[in-house]
């Protein structure tokens, strides 16, 4: 009897573990969503009304599309013919997706969704972030990307060509599954930056090209605004300072036709203790490992290192200039100040602190001539 009571007590204690067990669907019954795309479509009828601007804001509908794998072609997922698409519209992303569930032949399963493609108009967080964070199905490892223009154009492809979904996946994870590259900003990373002090979060910007899709820059979230950053060097500065652990494989072109492939790197932003905001002088200590990829001029290692250093200084300068101009600290300098000089931060938090700060770069480059 005592054993029975112990058993019942154990079972009662284990009952909370069953939470969520109703959200099930057998593998054979589910449809695999590989990408979710969100865009804004304007209601043309209302646009013609008198108060055009306000009507446009109020009448915008959210279009959500899920890009599903054909079951019998799932393993050849690099081609466009492996995917099909279901689209629905609604007042919100949740409403649109609710309609998608209705039109979907079987259960939509987002557990292996890897991409969240945001149209240029849908990129502001008000349209998608709340749903992405609350959805029990979207994983925090999903990669949000912002596309230039309309999503429809970006994802359109002939059946026999490489799928844009596949290409976007490759862009996010060039080293293979679960190894994000410099452009692989996961939802988790984005949200951490979004709620972090002193940094403007950024998402990769992608565009349609003749070969499919390619990275076009950055979508920087500065408060309620989004700035599309297409300057190559500014993007490189973001990659070097914010995405340093993911530099592997990135190729940098230098003067004299020299090119190096980065193997890895570390960044440490050093801040000497100061009492006044004007005395702040962050020093970025960048350690890089790189292979010389192309050296037509036959420069020695020392010369290539000097070229690379010069290029890195230039990149940082452009990045900082862009950051100042946009007044969006996408390089995260403010975050370092907030972390390392917390008594200074309240003095500058509400100001355009980037204008008054000079950032130095110290590099330590390990070059492999082979």
């Amino acid at each position, binding site marked *: 009897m005592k*054993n029975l009571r*112990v*058993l019942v007590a*154990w*079972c009662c204690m*284990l009952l909370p*573990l*069953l939470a969520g*067990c109703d959200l*099930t*669907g*057998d*593998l*054979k*019954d*589910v449809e*695999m969503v590989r990408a979710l795309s969100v865009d804004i479509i304007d209601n043309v009828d209302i646009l013609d009304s008198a108060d055009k601007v306000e009507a446009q804001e109020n009448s915008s509908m959210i279009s959500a599309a899920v890009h599903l*794998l054909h*079951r*019998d072609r*799932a*393993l050849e*997922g690099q081609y466009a013919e492996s995917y099909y698409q279901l689209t629905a519209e609604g007042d919100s992303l949740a409403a649109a997706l609710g309609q998608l569930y209705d039109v979907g032949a079987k259960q939509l*399963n987002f*557990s*292996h969704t*890897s991409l969240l493609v945001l149209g240029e108009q849908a990129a502001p967080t008000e349209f998608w972030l709340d749903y992405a964070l609350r959805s029990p199905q979207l*994983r925090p490892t999903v990669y949000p990307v912002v596309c230039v223009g309309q999503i429809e154009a970006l994802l359109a492809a002939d059946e026999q060509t490489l799928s844009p979904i596949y290409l976007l996946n490759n862009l996010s994870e060039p080293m293979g*599954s*679960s190894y994000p590259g410099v452009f692989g900003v996961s939802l988790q990373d984005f949200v951490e930056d979004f709620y972090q002090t002193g940094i403007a979060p950024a998402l990769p910007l992608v565009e349609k090209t003749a070969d499919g899709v390619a990275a076009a820059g950055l979508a920087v979230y500065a408060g309620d605004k989004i700035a599309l950053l297409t300057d190559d060097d500014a993007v490189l500065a973001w990659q070097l300072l914010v995405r340093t652990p993911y530099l592997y494989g990135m190729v940098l072109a230098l003067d004299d036709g020299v090119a190096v492939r980065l193997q890895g790197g570390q960044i440490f932003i050093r801040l000497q203790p100061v009492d006044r905001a004007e005395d702040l002088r962050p020093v970025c200590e960048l350690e890089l490992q790189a292979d010389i990829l192309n050296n037509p001029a036959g420069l020695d290692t020392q010369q290539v290192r000097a070229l690379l250093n010069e290029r890195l200084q230039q990149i940082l300068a452009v990045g900082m200039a862009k950051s100042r101009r946009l007044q969006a600290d996408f390089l995260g300098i403010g975050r370092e100040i907030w972390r390392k000089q917390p008594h200074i931060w309240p003095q500058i938090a509400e100001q355009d602190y980037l204008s008054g700060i000079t950032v130095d770069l110290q590099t330590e480059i390990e070059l492999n001539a082979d």
Partner: protein
Amino acid sequence: MALHKPPKTYLLNNLEKNISLLQNYVGDYGDMVIRRIEREGCPPAAVIYFDGMTDKDAVSEFIIKPLLRCAADNLRQQPEDIAAGCLLVADWQSADNVQDFMDSLFSGNCGLLFDGTAAGLFFDLKGFERRGIAEPQTEIVVRGSREGFIENLKTNMSLLRRRIKTPNLCFENMKLGTETNTNICLAYIRGLADPDVIAEARRRLQAIEIDSILESGYIEQLVEDEPWSPFPTIANSEKPDKVAAKLLEGRVAVLVDGTPFVLTAPMLFMESFQSAEDYYARPFMASMVRFLRFISFIFAVYGPALYIAVCSFHIELLPTNLMLNIWQSAGETPLSAGWSVFFYSLVYEVVREAGIRLPRPVGAAISIVGGLVIGDMAVSAGLISAPVVIIVAFTAIAMFVVDALTDAATVLRFGFILLAWWLGFGGLLLGTLLLLLHLVNLKSFGVAYMAPFAPLIPYQLRDSLVRFPWWLLGRRPQNLTVGSFWRQKAEQPPVGSNNWGADKE
């Protein structure tokens, strides 16, 4: 309720009446041979045995011939004196009642009755056909003794005695089964085995009241601690070296006439993962193989259930490429993961049962048909997906890696399949907790089943999931042994390891 035992009928002084008593006792037995011996001036005698069970040549040579040739005066002595002085048989005993006398004859002994004596002699001249000592089919080893127990109790006892040449090796004989009168032997090493365990084993054996003991499995189920547990709490083996090793660790063994399977107790959970060969091979390989056995057992219990839980509840746990493979295969079948695994596991069990019971050539054919044809055709026909076949087939193989726990693994596998089907990982967790609770509560003859893990006995972990070198296994299991704990000099490195070559240089 005790089984009814008829009152004993004692032998009389009259030979003819005694023969009548015996005939009445056994009824119409066509195979009972009664050879009367009558000599001038000597009391008549009768040699009695069952045809086919007693060595006739030995009866003629060692009993009848001496009786006919010895001096008449000798035959007028008491039967015990005649057996000692005239007959040429080493092993004999006397009985004063019909039941004991006939029981010995049923065992293949040869009986001898004299007129004027209210007692009978019986001689161990068994001559029935018996299987020779051969390699056990269930415990084949690459390295180690090829001898296996046979169906003859005396032979089995000798196999143990040949390995443990110590006066402390004790055999206690008893008979069980009111109809079968099966000879049972309780074996242990005095001074190593726990007296409490010996007494408990003796008590449990003597408490058995049943009409027949046809195999040691009867005894196992009648004396085990937890009859409702899927886990065995009494081990069995066909290998004399294995049983000898267990006796040397302080366990007791029960040998049963008529079966090559010898029971040993107390049993520990870890014992199921040990093989005789582990102790003959080098420790690294032995440890690795033992660890593999453990992993195989875990897979045999959890494999199909994990598949169901992942496919029905936790798809996100699979790497995408693997998921796509399974997803694609699953989409072509009408059954869900739960039904597929349950159905194919049942098919496998049917095929296995058929393969075991049928004659060997047919059984092999059934296995091939079951394993290859049904599996392949079921996949081709779209009834089940290929991953299910792989999972169930590999589970079946893994299940046989730990032979002693095959039955438990089969039962648990289906239990976990149902739990995973119902609750996913929650079910698996629930089942695992209940299983662990059950395991740590199990005892075998008073010894904790999960030792040396629960209770933790650090020294004995050296011979658990891994096996340390012999020279580091100096102590006998302290939860099994009393008295002499040390089986060798304490942690003495191998003799050859002390720079022997360096001294020469």
